[in-house]
C-alpha cells in the first residue's frame, strides 16, 4: 500500500535529514529580518517583498533537495499538493506540520495554519505602531513555496493573512493556485 504523506514525512525526517540547532536558525533568520528593517528604514512593505524574494531563491533550490530525498511522485490534484507541502515539506525542513484547511469552493485556494512557527519563537514586533500592521515576519516562507512549486510547474501566490505576532489568533498563510504550467511540463513525465 502506498504510504501516506505523514508517514513519508516522518520517515524522511527521522532517517534522511541532518538536524541543526533550532536557535541557530531562529537567530539567523531574526538577524536577517532585523537587518532588512534597518536597511529599508522600517519600510515594512519593502521588507516583506525582500523576504519573499529571498524565499523564492531558496525555494527554487530547495525543491531539488526535497525531490531527491523524498522520492515524491507528481501530485495529481492541488489537494495532494497541499498535503505534501504540509506533511512532508514543512515536516522535513522545519519539523512542523501546519494544518491544511479553509479550502475555497473551486479547490484552488487553501490555508496553512501554523500552530507553531520556529522562525518566530522569540519574536516581538517593534512597537512603532507600524510593524504590527505591515510586517509579515515569516514572509520568507511564502517565497519558498512559490519558488519550489514553480519548479514543478505549479504557479501559486502565497501570502500571510494572519500572524500571532500581530495579535491575531492564528498564523495563517493563504496559497492560491494561479495555473499549472502545462507548457513547461517535462515531456514523458511519469
Amino acid at each position: 500500500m502506498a504510504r501516506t504523506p505523514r508517514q513519508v514525512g516522518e520517515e524522511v525526517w527521522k532517517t534522511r535529514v541532518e538536524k541543526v540547532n533550532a536557535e541557530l536558525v531562529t537567530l539567523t533568520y531574526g538577524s536577517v529580518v532585523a537587518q532588512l528593517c534597518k536597511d529599508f528604514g522600517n519600510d515594512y512593505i519593502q521588507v516583506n517583498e525582500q523576504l519573499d524574494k529571498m524565499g523564492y531563491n531558496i525555494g527554487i533550490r530547495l525543491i531539488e533537495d526535497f525531490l531527491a530525498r523524498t522520492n515524491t511522485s507528481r501530485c495529481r490534484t492541488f489537494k495532494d499538493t497541499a498535503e505534501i507541502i504540509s506533511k512532508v515539506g514543512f515536516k522535513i525542513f522545519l519539523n512542523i506540520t501546519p494544518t491544511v484547511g479553509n479550502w475555497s469552493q473551486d479547490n484552488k485556494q487553501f490555508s496553512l495554519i501554523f500552530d507553531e512557527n520556529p522562525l518566530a519563537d522569540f519574536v516581538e514586533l517593534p512597537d512603532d505602531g507600524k510593524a504590527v500592521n505591515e510586517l509579515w515576519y515569516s514572509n520568507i516562507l511564502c517565497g519558498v513555496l512559490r519558488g519550489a512549486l514553480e519548479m514543478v510547474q505549479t504557479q501559486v501566490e502565497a501570502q500571510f493573512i494572519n500572524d500571532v505576532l500581530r495579535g491575531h489568533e492564528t498564523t495563517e498563510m493563504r496559497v492560491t493556485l494561479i495555473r499549472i504550467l502545462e507548457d513547461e511540463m517535462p515531456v514523458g513525465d511519469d
Partner: protein
Amino acid sequence: MVVYSLYILNKAAGLIYQRDFNEGLKRLSSNDYLVLSGTFHAVYAIASQISPVPSSSGIEVLETETFRLQCFQTLTGTKFLLISEPRQQNTDAVLRRIYELYADYVIKNPFYQIEMPVRCELFDRHLATYIRGIP
C-alpha cells in the same frame, strides 16, 4: 561496476555536465556531446508521445551489446544519463543517489546559477568517490 559516463541535461535540453569515469568510450568533440544530448532529449520526447500507453514516460533504458544507457528525469525536468557496462544492475538507484549529490553540491552551492553548466569541484569529488565505491 563499470560506469563509463554521466550526462546531465537541463530542462531546455542543454548539456550542463558531462564526465567520463572509466576508459571504454571514445571521446567526442564538445560539439558532438551537445548534439548527442539534444538528440536524446528529442528522442525521449518522441518515445513518450508515440507510446501506445497514455501518459507514458520517455526512454528509461537503452540496452545494447556494448553499453547500457539509463535515463532518469526529475520532476523539475532535469535529465541524468548514465552509461555503463551492458549487464550493470541497479543503474536507476545509482542515478537517484547521483541526484542527491547534485542537489547537495550543485544546487545548494549559492554561487551556482540554476540551469547553467556545472562547474563545482565538490560535486566532482563526491561523485568520483561515490562511483568508485559502487560494487
